[in-house]
């Protein structure tokens, strides 16, 4: 990490309240970094979905397990890491929520939303044996807080970074 970069990390309990806490903290960093309102919404939602994924699927809502959240603010982007203590998962096994047969599913849209709202998204094996979600958003261009990365909420999700 260069001198121009900032790093922040926190360990969260496996509980519903951690979802709001993580979202609020990342929103503050995103606002301070100069992201506009729409991008802050997308970043906040993606962090939320990442932590929900760790809480529910990774740690299976088991309170003895932790969720590890880290933020890196580099000169050109904000990078978010969400690490759980579960068994890991393969992105290819996640059903497509836009498929006709899944439209009425009551779950399974979190990964899709993170892919749609962030510029880069991938899942790697974590150091704790669980899954580590790594996603990033390009910092706004000077004077144009909305003109960075994906300009539309309706943008199609990207494939794995």
């Amino acid at each position: 990490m260069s001198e121009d970069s900032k790093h922040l990390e926190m360990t969260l309990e496996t509980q519903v309240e951690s979802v709001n806490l993580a979202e609020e903290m990342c929103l503050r960093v995103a606002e301070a970094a100069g992201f506009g309102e729409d991008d802050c919404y997308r970043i906040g939602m993606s962090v939320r979905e990442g932590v929900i994924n760790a809480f529910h699927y990774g740690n299976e809502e088991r309170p003895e397990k932790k969720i590890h959240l880290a933020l890196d603010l580099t000169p050109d982007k904000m990078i978010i890491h969400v690490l759980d203590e579960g068994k890991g998962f393969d992105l290819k096994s996640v059903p497509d929520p836009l498929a006709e047969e899944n439209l009425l599913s009551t779950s399974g849209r979190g990964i899709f939303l993170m892919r749609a709202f962030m510029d880069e998204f991938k899942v790697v094996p974590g150091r704790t044996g669980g899954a580590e979600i790594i996603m990033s958003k390009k910092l706004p261009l000077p004077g144009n807080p909305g003109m960075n990365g994906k300009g539309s909420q309706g943008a199609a999700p990207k494939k794995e970074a």
Partner: protein
Amino acid sequence: MALRATHREAAGVTVVDIGGRITLGEGSALLRKTIRELLEDQRTMILLNLADVDYIDSSGIGELVSAYTGVKNRGGSLKLLHLTRKVHDLLQLTKLFTVFEVYSDETTALRSFQ
């Protein structure tokens, strides 16, 4: 902001006025409880007024879908009214616009149940 939900009757339809965030935890739970109580009360024509809902996450989307299928399975109908921009865009992104009937005018929405 915590979720709020109140309901009223209009032209044989139960209009549920919802405000706040429909998210994992209390928000989703309140929506689930509200729909369950309406169904127990044999009210199966339901219009969800989301004018004051400024935020929905994937859990909230799941809860809306669950409400839709729950009402439909009881022979009823659940429709949406007054989506905010963020909720509108989210339903479009997730293709749920092809599932839900969405209205921007309450009179038109109520008439659609006849």
